């Protein structure tokens, strides 16, 4: 133990700097909030354009007290996650398949690349026609959207596994599944997780649009419904909810990276 760690005075001096580090990312949002509240109170910002933060908070409290808010959040989250599981799962499987087997790449990759260039949201009219506006339409759109980032990054990850390590693995008797489990999958994992992170962002974007166009519940529906009645405070609550849910999804992805890639100095938690 060195002198610095022994000295309690140094410790107490260090603590505020850690606190400042934690608080710093929130400085800009809080400053914006203060400016926003000030602009609303002096009347620079009329409430029919943007409600004051206080109005948003009180509307948030009212909506959550009635339980309406949580119902919408639950519905949206369920849609987002099930779409992510379906689309991400298929993307992962197909990515592993086309990257590992030459014939699968020849057979499937061209098709997948063509479909990839169609924006999922451009399919909305067709999707409404096929599925109506019930759950399967949203599930389809979200799945389609999250499929591609996972697929492409899985493919890329498998293909860029260090050949030296593969060669080494073979000289140590690894082949087939053991080579896959010990070297190919862990080697592709950083890239796969990049795909997952992209997908989680895209997941919300697509769901928001899908819900605002065709839905009878969910955050998007709540926001669009509020627009009909010019309830700007409810609209802002909906938008902020998306921001918070998106941030949560990103935190989840970061957590997975930190755990699964803890061997990689680039992903180790800052100390």
């Amino acid at each position, binding site marked *: 133990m060195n002198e610095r760690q022994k000295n309690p005075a140094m410790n107490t001096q260090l603590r505020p700097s850690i606190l400042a580090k934690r608080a710093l990312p929130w400085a800009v949002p809080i400053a914006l909030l203060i400016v926003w509240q000030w602009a609303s109170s002096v009347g620079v910002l009329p409430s029919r354009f943007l409600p004051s933060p206080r109005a948003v908070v009180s509307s948030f409290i009212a909506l959550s007290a009635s339980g309406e808010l949580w119902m919408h959040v639950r519905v949206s989250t369920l849609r987002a996650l099930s779409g992510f599981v379906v689309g991400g799962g298929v993307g992962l499987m197909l990515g592993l398949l086309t990257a590992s087997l030459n014939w699968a790449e020849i057979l499937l990759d061209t098709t997948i690349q063509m479909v990839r260039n169609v924006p999922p949201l451009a399919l909305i009219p067709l999707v409404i026609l096929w599925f109506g506006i019930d759950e399967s339409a949203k599930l389809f759109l979200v799945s389609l959207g999250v499929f591609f980032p996972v697929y492409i990054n899985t493919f890329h990850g498998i293909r860029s596994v260090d050949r*030296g*390590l593969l*060669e*080494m*693995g073979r*000289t*140590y*008797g*690894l082949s087939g599944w*053991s080579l896959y489990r*010990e*070297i190919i999958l*862990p*080697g592709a*994992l950083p890239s796969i997780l990049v795909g997952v992170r992209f997908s989680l962002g895209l997941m919300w974007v697509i769901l928001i649009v899908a819900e605002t166009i065709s839905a009878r519940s969910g955050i998007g529906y709540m926001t669009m419904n509020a627009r009909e009645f010019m309830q700007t405070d409810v609209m802002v609550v909906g938008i902020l909810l998306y921001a918070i849910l998106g941030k949560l999804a990103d935190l989840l992805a970061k957590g997975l990276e930190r755990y699964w*890639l*803890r*061997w*990689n*100095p680039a992903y180790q938690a800052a100390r």
Partner: protein
Amino acid sequence: MPVTFSSREIEAGERRWSRGVSVAIKNVSIAFGGRTVLENFDVEIPAGEFVAIVGRSGCGKSTLLRSVAGLETPQSGTIALGNVAEYVAGHNGEPDVRVMFQDSRLLPWRRVLPNVMLGLEPALIPQARKVLAQVGLGERANDWPATLSGGQRQRVALARALVHDPNLLLLDEPLGSLDALTRIEMQQLIEDVWRSRGFTAMLVTHDVAEAVSLADRVILIEGGRVALDEVVNIPRPRTRGSARFAALEERILDRVLQRRPVVEEPW
């Protein structure tokens, strides 16, 4: 007057009971994209011998080693490994060949001990720990490879090879990327391990001093053939400063660089 043996003969005698296997490379030709790398290459390596292969970059020394490891397939010729001596415990006739590459090729997502354990049953953990301690990294068993220095990583790679108790160890410039001090330490370690275990060793290196200090025999490859096959008749442990060492190093280096040796003119 008593019959005296050279140190090489004595060592070969000691190693007759070793676990090394002989290597017979006959008529091997390898070409990449029309460019011939090795042409009708012949070398015989007796069991337990330490052979260093030197030559300029691109002379085919690595290719030769990789063919012995089975990582390249020669267009023609044969590479035959001898049988494992019957007394060697646990042998199944099939010689165990391990490669140490220039880069350690540790799996970054496995900690040090699991890297050494690659391809082994969990029952061999004590054995792996023992070998790790032998290379001086017993304390680092639970660390990630990313936290090790280059020299330490090569030690782990050496331990990973040694835990299999190889009959033939192929070293493909394993010390090439290490600093001078670490390199000397590693040479010492490799020599000690080889002397205590008696496997056959083939070392590819561009460092003639390294070849002379470690090997029983130095082979120079040039134009795809053996250009020089020199027995190193210096007793171990060898000291780099000695006159014999320096003279031999100088002679091999001259040949590699194709410098004309300075000959005393008779007139």
